[in-house]
């Protein structure tokens, strides 16, 4: 039996961003297609775990303590090392301001 090909999409909002916003649900092993804000394909990343739509996937490695950048701005700091393809959320990012 042939498995359905999962190619969820994710938006990279700004060139300098380290994360992309999932537009479709992803499961571990999916090849996520990365889109720029004009919905043109700019590459892909392999999901390492399930990620819900509109949550973030790391599109590059982010070391513990480094800034997590979205919309070209720091949205927090990595609380542990984040690999490319990881779900980026409250379990691995903390506010740089209120913590």
């Amino acid at each position, binding site marked *: 039996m042939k498995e359905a090909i999962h190619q969820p999409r994710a*938006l990279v*909002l700004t060139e300098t961003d380290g994360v992309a*916003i999932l*537009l479709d649900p992803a499961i571990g092993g999916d090849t996520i297609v990365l*889109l720029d804000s004009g*919905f043109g394909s700019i590459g892909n990343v392999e999901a390492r775990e399930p990620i*819900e*739509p*509109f*949550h*973030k996937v790391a599109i590059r490695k982010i070391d513990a303590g480094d800034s*997590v950048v*979205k*919309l070209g*701005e*720091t*949205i*927090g700091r990595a609380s542990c090392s984040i690999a490319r393809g990881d779900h*980026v*959320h*409250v379990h691995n*990012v*903390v*506010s*740089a*301001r*209120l*913590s």
Partner: protein
Amino acid sequence: MMHEQPFKGFRRAEGRAGIRNCLLVLPVGQCANELALACASGISGAFPLLHTQPCAHLGEDNAAARSCLVGLGRNPNAAAVLVVGIGCDSISADGIAEEIASTGKPVEWLTVSSCGDWNTVIERGRAWLATQQKAAASLRREEVPCSDLALGIKCGGSDATSAVAGNAAIGQAVDRLVGAGGTVIFSETTELIGAEHLLMARAATPSVRNEIRAVVRRVEDSILATGVDPRGTQPTPGNIAGGLTTLEEKSLGGVIKTGSGPIAGVFAWGAWPERNGLHLMDCPANVPQLLLGWAAAGAQLLVFSVGGGLPARIPSLIGTNVGGFPLLPILKILSNPRDRDVSATFDLDASGVLDGRESVDHVAIRLWDRIAATADGEPTYLEDYPAPAVQMWEMLVRGPTI
């Protein structure tokens, strides 16, 4: 200044034109809320604005509440204002009425003290409102420049789609209105933490820059001073479920709706901005306080950007138990395509941006047209929403209640 089409509003004796004719019934304190309700009951167009002002607030809070009440009466959407009180209130009904009357609009004040008893206030109040109802019905809309528009902007139920769709479109509409000489007011100081540097860079003057920094620092310090970890509160559990991780991320998405233009000023809750342009109203992210603040600052219309998820499933006004606030019509915008099945409870569906079906530029044009139509009199979704409950609107309190 960019020229835009005029809208059709109700010219007032002074100041900006209104987009609605509200018969505002304004109690000066919460002891008079029942009077306001009884005066307005069954009178179409009458809005009893119930609120939480007690007798036991101190100087600064009382002054802000007083200024708020005057501003609510001055709001261009109020065609006539009935001020009611007991007579022993900490804010005097006659004083408020006198200041509102300086706008030239019809104003009456009645208290238990001036009328002799409780029921007489209600009888006289109802008779006065009936007269004003007839007068308001004879008012006709006229062409008014869109520089007369003052817009409040807010997000609620934010998720990761808000910044990409609804807020991005609002930002373009804001630039357009400010470019045409109009006024836009954003607020929710807590939700500027982490994004204040972007706003400071847009301050029209060094003093506005300092004020932006000061109001954000004050709210941040007040949170840290509690010693309580704010995570799970800001961002809210709903925001986190929607993919927002930190307050900074929420803030960065939120400020997108302020557009790209200069910030003309910062003003305190309860005050009225001195000039047109883009302003920050210093108020926490609490809807019953925010709506009072916007209306008291003269806004005629609020654009409310909703992300998605469970908050998008609330058909009424998020953050309250009612459908809306008659003095300030509200346009609801949806951003998340997964909630498109409830888009009928919104005035504008911006979610096409998230699946590449519609550009932000195009949504912004539709939003502008919807703002113009609302200003011309087209009812919003919430204006038609049945409201079985009663809402107490909240005065902003910074000091102790004694």
